[in-house]
């Protein structure tokens, strides 16, 4: 991790009239792939918009890439990409024209903008449809286009607001693969806002859980999983009932899940007792998934605490 935070907020609050959308948010986010989790209306999009200056901050301060938000808007946004949740194309333009135009708005000269636009459209997997008017695109194509325009100017950090909304499973997998590669391969910090835990778990290393405008959890996925140790999912080719019986003998809760996996609560910080048992039973596992629902459980727990506090 770099020592310089990419996002730094101090007491950041945002009100819409009397409604509090962000409540005293203080964060230090370091480069990486960061998942912004929360239920609908939690304040995820508002936080992104405040950082991008799409919404004015009511109180507090924020820094993006080391620069004060609100003072150096243009300079910050040259280095930042944003794919909003809703459709926001420019009517009457073909896909490649639109991405070229977005690159020019970010300060790329025309030739470079056009070249980058085509490269990014290749990158997001759009072929000949790039020459069609954006108005005629399907939801999946629009999502790809939004991603292309967000990264066309080679930003250092990219904000993606619900990028898999409205996509079929194949499309979701492709977009997530791209997003995952942005940080892992190309070193672009990704802030992925979603209410889909699976998406965030797949792509992100750091998790921020936000609800009612407050940051409830901010930690690495690894640490969150470590907090929820004591459960695992085991995939076996045979011997399900044998393992279930052995678990019962040790007072471990063992459930057969609809997908054929066994969920075992082994009540230990490590997988060693479970692996020893499998060895003793001579049941080679096909896969052992530690803390399979750690993020979901953390998320639900955080929300429960938040509700109780409210």
């Amino acid at each position: 991790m770099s020592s310089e935070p990419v996002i730094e907020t101090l007491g950041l609050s945002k009100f819409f009239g009397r409604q509090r959308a962000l409540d005293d948010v203080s964060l230090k986010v370091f480069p990486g792939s960061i998942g912004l989790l929360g239920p609908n209306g939690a304040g995820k999009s508002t936080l992104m918009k405040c950082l991008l200056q799409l919404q004015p901050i009511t109180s507090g301060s924020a820094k993006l890439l080391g620069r004060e938000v609100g003072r150096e808007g243009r300079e910050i946004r040259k280095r930042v990409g944003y794919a909003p949740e809703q459709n926001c194309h420019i009517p009457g333009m073909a896909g490649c024209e639109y991405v070229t135009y977005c690159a020019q708005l970010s300060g790329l000269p025309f030739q470079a903008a056009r070249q980058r636009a085509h490269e990014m459209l290749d990158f997001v997997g759009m072929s000949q449809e790039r020459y069609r008017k954006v108005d005629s695109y399907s939801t999946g194509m629009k999502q790809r286009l939004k991603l292309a325009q967000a990264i066309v100017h080679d930003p250092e950090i990219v904000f993606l607001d619900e990028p898999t909304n409205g996509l079929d499973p194949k499309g979701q997998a492709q977009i997530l693969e791209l997003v995952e590669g942005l940080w892992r391969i190309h070193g672009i910090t990704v802030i992925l806002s979603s209410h889909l835990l699976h998406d965030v778990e797949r792509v992100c290393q750091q998790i921020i859980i936000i609800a009612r405008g407050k940051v409830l959890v901010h930690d690495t996925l690894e640490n969150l999983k470590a907090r929820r140790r004591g459960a695992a999912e085991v995939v076996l080719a045979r011997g399900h009932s044998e393992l279930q019986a052995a678990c019962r003998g040790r007072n471990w809760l063992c459930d057969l899940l609809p997908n054929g996996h066994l969920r075992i609560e082994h009540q230990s910080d490590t997988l060693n007792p479970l692996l020893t048992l499998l060895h003793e039973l001579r049941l080679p596992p096909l896969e052992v998934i530690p803390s399979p629902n750690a993020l979901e459980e953390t998320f639900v727990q955080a929300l429960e605490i938040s509700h109780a506090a409210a």
Partner: protein
Amino acid sequence: MPLHDAHYQHWDGLHTSIWGRRRVIAQNGISACLRAKLLRYVVLLSWAGGLVMAAFLFFLGQVLVPDSLLVRWVTQISPDMRVFVRMFTSWLVDHPEVSVGTTQNVLFYYYGVYSMPVCIVALGMALPALITRDLASNAIVIYSSKAVTRGDYLLGKFCTAFGVITLTWLGPVCGAWFIGNLLAPNWSFFWHSRIALLHLLMFGLGSAAVLSALALGVSAVSSREKSTPALWFIWWVLGFAIQPIAVHTLPWLRHVSFGYDLRQSALAVFHLGRELQTAEDSIPIFGQMLSHVSQQTRDALNHPTLGGSVLGLALMLLAAGLIIRKRVVPE
């Protein structure tokens, strides 16, 4: 295509300046406006008008200079015409500023004022491409997330409207001045018409700025593509229709019409009353031609209601500014 085959490459070139980005917004806006076929026809019509004007100036130049092609040709055909032509040519010798300057000043006034409707119609057609569509498609969010501010966006859109006005109004009339004087028999025409050009630019640029800002305001009123042009045309026609009624009842009500206010400004800028008086005093034939102009008309020409017009336009611009401030925000 397989996603892994596509490579992401970092870009480390030099960024364009903020003025470059503003230019891109304006350029894109003008292209979007010109996608409407009807607007392209209006542009062609305007330039055709400009060419007619240039032809008229060419003809005027030919008439005024003794050894011009036209004069030589006419006198060859009919020696009797020589006296008549000599009368015209003596104007240039005796009163060059009047025969060229005043004539062009009056011509530009009439061309400027009476071709303005074409430009207003063109702006009406361009309105959806200014802000309306961006509001409808949430494109404001995209602009706001790029390296431009709301001010840059509005400046770009302002230049778009200004560009449409230039294409349909300022461009043709300035082109007519240039071509007309370029084809004149001698270069002094450029010099003698400098004041007329100055008046034209003062009025044209000022009016274009006002009309552009008003068009932006109307364009931001709604996100429906049909509503904003309808509102623009209703405002314009209503302002035009209200004048004969308002003149006898509530004269200040005339200032609700931006067309009226701009015409009054034109009278003040071109000094039309003074120019006609100079022409009457200098060249007798003008005196005879203008003798039938009523005193009421002369008063109207000499004393335009400039204060009221400026105030009216200022209030309209204020309203446009407030609308833009309220409406042109991301979401």
